[in-house]
């Protein structure tokens, strides 16, 4: 038995379940994933095509004023960590990110920090910023380049393998985009020329440098991002995927628990009371089983509101029937068992027999039933979300597929928007079915090696 338990706990499905539950509890933040638009829409996964430019952020902070100020000088929206996909920060000093950024030269008083880890980097950012970033560009021109920040009497220079631009100079806040026509004119470029291609004409060594004091962030947006790319709004698919685990688990487990509660109550009532109550409940079960549920769910969800808990409630109202049937047949067979008759002869009351004897007797099978019921609820939720009938603010897997469908992800070839949520749903369903089967075997050892195999 103990050995058996170990086998179940080490099973692939159980391990997967624990991992998914951990991901659901922790959320994407722990993995260093962030919400909101991150990169251009439909960016490909990072590992897919290394000739495409990744999305990178370069942060240069210039000179005297900053060194004297405290560490809080870095603007809050500036990414600090190095662990988030292809992003590099000016002072990160060759942290092996995809951007392949190296600090070549800093102001004279700033030591080079080539060998320091991300923690040192965070500390170091405010203390000793670099005024210059060099990068080794190996990709096609990016889609978009933008420059934001503040200058306190400085100029931002962009040195290319051949030639040089002064992107901005002077004093005050800057917010420039390579698509701005005034910006192009200021640099002497024709208005209808793609400036990103002018700024990144070829492969080679580039350098962004800040002469004077200021604080500038340059975003170079390419067509690659993160582990799983981005969706039609530029959100990180990996983040959405991890968020989706939570919704699926909550809906699946909560709806099944509530449905099991209903099923247990009605099944016990039906089986133990018998007579007209039994007939009524069983007829209701028959009727509910012969009505197509998805249309009803659609009407409820579409017209009653789409919040998560509405959905859970609606799902559980329409999925208690199977459990009720099972509990009823079990109650029927136990009601007239000799030991129950004995209990009655000893003067046990009905509630005592029901809740102290029949329910514990049914518990193992109920547990298995819960696990086997979760896939149904998850699939139903995913189906409703796919039809667009879920809370649009909650990124569930069904919703991701809905958006992939509505925004035509496959006509953009964006398979990374379809495969992860779809496989996620399937995996979670398979896991629960396997756990349910194991619990069922536990509850009824006759099933082992029986018809299933």
């Amino acid at each position, binding site marked *: 038995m103990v050995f058996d338990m170990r086998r179940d706990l080490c099973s692939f499905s159980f391990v997967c379940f624990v991992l998914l539950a951990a991901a659901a509890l922790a959320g994407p933040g722990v993995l260093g994933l962030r919400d909101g638009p991150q990169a251009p829409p439909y960016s490909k996964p990072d590992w897919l095509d290394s000739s495409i430019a990744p999305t990178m952020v370069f942060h240069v902070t210039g000179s005297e004023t900053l060194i004297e100020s405290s560490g809080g000088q870095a603007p809050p929206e500036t990414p600090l960590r190095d662990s988030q996909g292809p992003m590099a920060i000016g002072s990160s000093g060759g942290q092996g990110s995809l951007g392949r950024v190296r600090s070549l030269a800093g102001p004279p008083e700033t030591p080079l920090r080539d060998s320091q880890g991300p923690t040192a980097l965070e500390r170091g950012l405010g203390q000793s910023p670099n005024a210059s970033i060099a990068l080794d560009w190996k990709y096609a021109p990016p889609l978009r380049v933008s420059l934001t920040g503040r200058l306190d009497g400085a100029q931002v220079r962009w040195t290319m393998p051949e030639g040089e631009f002064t992107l901005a100079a002077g004093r005050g806040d800057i917010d420039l985009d390579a698509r701005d026509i005034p910006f192009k004119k200021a640099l002497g470029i024709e208005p209808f020329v793609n400036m990103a291609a002018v700024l990144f004409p070829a492969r080679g060594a580039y350098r962004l440098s800040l002469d004077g004091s200021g604080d500038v962030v340059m975003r170079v947006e390419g067509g690659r991002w993160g582990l799983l790319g981005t969706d039609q709004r530029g959100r990180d698919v990996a983040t959405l995927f991890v968020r989706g685990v939570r919704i699926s688990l909550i809906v699946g487990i909560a709806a099944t628990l509530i449905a099991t509660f209903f099923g247990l109550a009605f099944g016990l009532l039906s089986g133990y009371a018998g007579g007209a109550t039994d007939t009524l409940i069983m007829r209701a079960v028959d009727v509910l089983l012969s009505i197509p549920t998805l249309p009803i769910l659609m009407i409820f969800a579409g017209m009653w509101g789409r919040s998560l808990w509405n959905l859970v409630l609606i799902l559980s109202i329409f999925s208690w029937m199977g459990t009720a049937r099972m509990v009823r047949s079990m109650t029927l067979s136990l009601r007239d068992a000799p030991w129950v008759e004995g209990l009655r002869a000893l003067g046990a009351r009905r509630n005592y027999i029901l809740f102290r004897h029949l329910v514990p007797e049914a518990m193992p099978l109920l547990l298995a039933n819960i696990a086997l019921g979760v896939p149904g609820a998850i699939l139903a939720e995913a189906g409703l979300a796919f039809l667009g009938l879920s809370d649009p603010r909650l990124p569930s897997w069904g919703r991701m597929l809905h958006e992939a469908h509505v925004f035509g992800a496959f006509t953009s070839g964006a398979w990374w928007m379809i495969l992860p949520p779809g496989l996620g749903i*399937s995996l979670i369903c398979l896991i629960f079915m396997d756990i349910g089967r194991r619990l069922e075997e536990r509850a009824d050892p006759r099933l082992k090696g029986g018809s299933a195999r």
Partner: protein
Amino acid sequence: MSALLKRFGGAVVVLIIVLVLNFFLFRIMPGDPLTGIVDPRFSPEAKQELAAQWGLDRPVAEQFVVYIREMLSFRFGLSMMTGTPVWDELRNRVPNTVALLLPALLLSAALGIALGVKAALRRGSKVERLVLWSGAVSFSFPSFFVQLLLLMCFAWLWPIFPLSGSTSIPPLAGLAGVADYLRHLALPLLSLVILSFGGWALYVRNMMVKALGEDYVLMAVARGLPRRRVVWNHAFRSILPPVLTILLLSLPGVVSGAVITETVFSLNGAGRFLLEATNSHDYPSAGAAFFLLALLTVGCNLLADLLYVLVDPRVRRGGVE
């Protein structure tokens, strides 16, 4: 005969419940049923006129009578989006749904039964492994995911099927039109068969394995009957009633699947009509589409019951339920 009457009575009861549920579902909804079409800027008189147009100003009992009359006469009242009778919209759509579901059901049942029997006969073979896997797929893979993948593979990467719609635009005439319609139907149909044959095959295999171990099969083999006859006339014949039960139980799911399939492939069917009506808060249309889908289910249920009577001699004699 009494068994048949009982089934018929049961179907009528289900339909009545669906009708009543349908009526009250829309009346107990929070908010005004006219929210979908009424602009807050409308004057109270205009609102009243609109309410009168849909009979919403009358007492509930009268509304109910009118509703039942409209439903049973298949007119379904006026759509709130177009102001035309709902049936005019639905009439063109229901055949598309039937043309999708019926062949899908028959094909997947036939394929599933054939594979299931084969798997039961050859335990441990590749066929059996296929059956076990496809069963797992059909129970755990969401239909829209598989359909999106198929759409991506066979309509975009390798465009041998159209991407969406029931017909080309503009529709072709004559024989070319029929061919065009079938071409648009092929991928949805295929996807439904792929998604559901596994469940059938798994059930049939499990029951066949049991049936093949029974004494009467051994007896039939001992009598020297041809293998074919043993398998189909003795073993399979005995599991036919439970197979029909599964057919019966799978129908609501199949109809639910129609909504999703029609949405994925943008087919012009009753399911997508329901979705559009729900999204635009068009209560009469949504109610009508739901009623028709329920009617379809109940009707098929009744048909399966009829077959049941033909197939199971015990039911014919009224011995067992």
